[in-house]
């Protein structure tokens, strides 16, 4: 292959005119490098620019500024039908006037493939998505899950260098979606081609991706492996968007080479010894972030750093876990306790009004810049 990167977006901007006549940047100076054979996800809520980015790779939209490269080649205004990428559409966009077989054959006919070859490749593709024997049906006669597979097979039969998937599982029910997630991941590993996957579902992105680009307001907020974006969110937005977090506002009291102490007014106390990220200065207004499952809750005062007295205000039993809501001075904090032991007695759980101690272990906390 010509390039190390399957797809590269270099400082890409896409501006639209809104119905009110204002100019709006749907994609705002985005740079991404997607490696060959990678399962790459763009994650964000609607309007964050993820779909527009994908459409610029496919060629349905052209960047206002910047450039999209596929296999190292600048795409410019290359139309979609001359790009070696294929798309699985959110709406599937199956041709209702054609049978399943004809839908799959469409792209191969456009390449000018011979009938025999088409037959072979379509048969193979149908087998791959387990739809053998459905080739004479019309898309309307298939279930949602089957239609989704047809859309997938129609794109894959062209053996693209890069497969683009725009929320392909959005229309399926939860159980089917979970099955398809694993199937898609397995398929991607088996075929070894690059997948670019757009989704608003963080769990989906974490399950499937090698790397994730978390996007918001047309910008990439963070790019990294699932572990990186969850364990080391780059900012408050990412920490909030992926998983859950308790945020405590404060001010940096002291700063050493690799540790910071932050005074948190709502706790009326200092949280000390936390690992720091780049660019923080002493006296800066920051947010201390800690995930609910990473807070230790104890009944006794265990003489430790970052130990705070708290009172239980509410508990919710969820089955696998119990959510415990506590007040620490004026701060409201959520703690997630795993139900490791089977028990029935209500007294064995935390009860409302109970006095407890919270332990915020420094290695589990993060100091993030205020947005």
């Amino acid at each position: 292959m010509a390039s190390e990167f399957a797809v590269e977006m270099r400082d890409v901007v896409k501006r639209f005119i809104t119905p009110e006549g204002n100019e709006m940047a749907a994609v705002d100076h985005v740079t991404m490098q997607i490696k060959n054979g990678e399962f790459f996800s763009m994650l964000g809520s609607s309007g964050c620019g993820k779909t527009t980015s994908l459409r610029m790779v496919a060629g349905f939209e052209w960047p206002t500024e910047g450039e999209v490269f596929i296999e190292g080649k600048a795409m410019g205004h290359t139309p979609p039908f001359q790009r070696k990428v294929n798309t699985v559409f959110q709406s599937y966009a199956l041709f209702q006037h054609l049978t399943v077989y004809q839908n799959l054959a469409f792209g191969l006919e456009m390449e000018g493939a011979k009938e025999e070859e088409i037959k072979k490749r379509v048969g193979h593709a149908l087998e791959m998505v387990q739809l053998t024997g459905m080739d004479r049906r019309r898309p309307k006669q298939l279930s949602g899950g089957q239609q989704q597979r047809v859309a997938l097979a129609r794109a894959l039969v062209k053996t693209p260098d890069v497969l683009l998937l725009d929320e392909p599982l959005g229309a399926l029910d939860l159980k089917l979606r979970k099955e398809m997630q694993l199937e898609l991941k397995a398929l991607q590993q088996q075929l070894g081609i690059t997948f670019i996957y757009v989704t608003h579902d963080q769990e989906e992105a974490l399950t499937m991706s090698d790397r994730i680009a978390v996007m918001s307001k047309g910008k990439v907020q963070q790019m990294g492996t699932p572990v990186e974006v969850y364990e080391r969110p780059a900012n408050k937005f990412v920490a909030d968007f992926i998983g859950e977090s308790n945020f405590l506002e404060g001010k940096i009291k002291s700063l050493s080479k690799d540790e910071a102490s932050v005074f948190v007014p709502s706790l009326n106390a200092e949280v000390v010894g936390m690992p720091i990220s780049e660019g923080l200065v002493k006296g800066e207004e920051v947010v201390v972030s800690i995930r609910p499952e990473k807070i230790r809750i104890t009944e006794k005062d265990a003489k430790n750093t970052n130990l705070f007295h708290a009172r239980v205000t509410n508990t919710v039993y969820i089955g696998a876990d119990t959510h415990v809501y506590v007040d620490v001075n004026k701060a409201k904090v959520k703690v997630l306790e795993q139900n490791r032991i089977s028990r029935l007695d209500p007294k064995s759980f935390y009860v409302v009004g109970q006095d407890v101690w919270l332990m915020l272990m420094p290695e589990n906390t993060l100091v993030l810049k205020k947005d």
Partner: protein
Amino acid sequence: MNPFRRSPFVIVAAVLVYFFLYAPIVGLVLYSFNASRANVTFEGFIPAFSDRVVMDGSLVKSSPCGPFHWYCDLAKNGDVAEAAGNTLTIAFTATIIATVIGTMSAIALQRYDFKIKPFSQLSLYIPIVIPEIVMGIGVLTLFSQLFGWVNEVFNLSGDARLSLGMATVTVSHIAFMVPFVTLVVQARLQGFDKSYEEAAMDLGANEWTTFRRVTFPMILPGVMSGALLAFTLSLDDFVITFFTNGPGSTTLPIYVYGLLRRIITPQVNALSTVWILVVFTAVLALQIIQNRESKQHS
């Protein structure tokens, strides 16, 4: 890729087709200001106002209405006024009846199962798949045979004799309007969620109250567009009216057709222009109402 991109061929073709659609209309309007009485040739516009009509051969030199001479002429034409009155009377009466019974049958066909349903549904397509002239001579035959028989049996004479007139035109108009109203309302009902009615009944409304307070207001836009379609079809109808009208029930299209077979003056153009203006205003008003409605919904 811009989804709204069109090839130059399409744009040129569209412009040409629009030209084809509008050139005759523009010509029609221009000729309504023609100075020539014969209207065979265009002799320029009527130039001046004066207190009376000045003619030079067949040319109108000046008129109290100036360039609008033929419009004034039209206004004084009693036959046109009568034909216009007839047209509107027939259109209004037929639309009201057709809308009421068409809406009823649309509800029946969409919501109920009954024995004659397939027959009722099928009969709706008759006016679409059969040329209008076949229907026209059919009803003409029906009326003439029926009236002949009744007149003979009851020994009617003079004014009491049944004959073609406003009533036969109206009744025939209803016949071809009803299928259109039914199909339009039916299409609207297809997208109607039954749970609204179930909710109303759940909240204590009986069938009639549910219809009056929930169903009807919700299908009203469909009923209105059905009624409007029926009304315009009636205003526009030539063939059915041609075969079913009698003395005293001449409508505007019939009147214009009669003129075309005799000597034509630009008065016909003036009449056409007024007609086009009325259509223009009506369609424009409708579009504005529809736009406002769709904006409210979005």
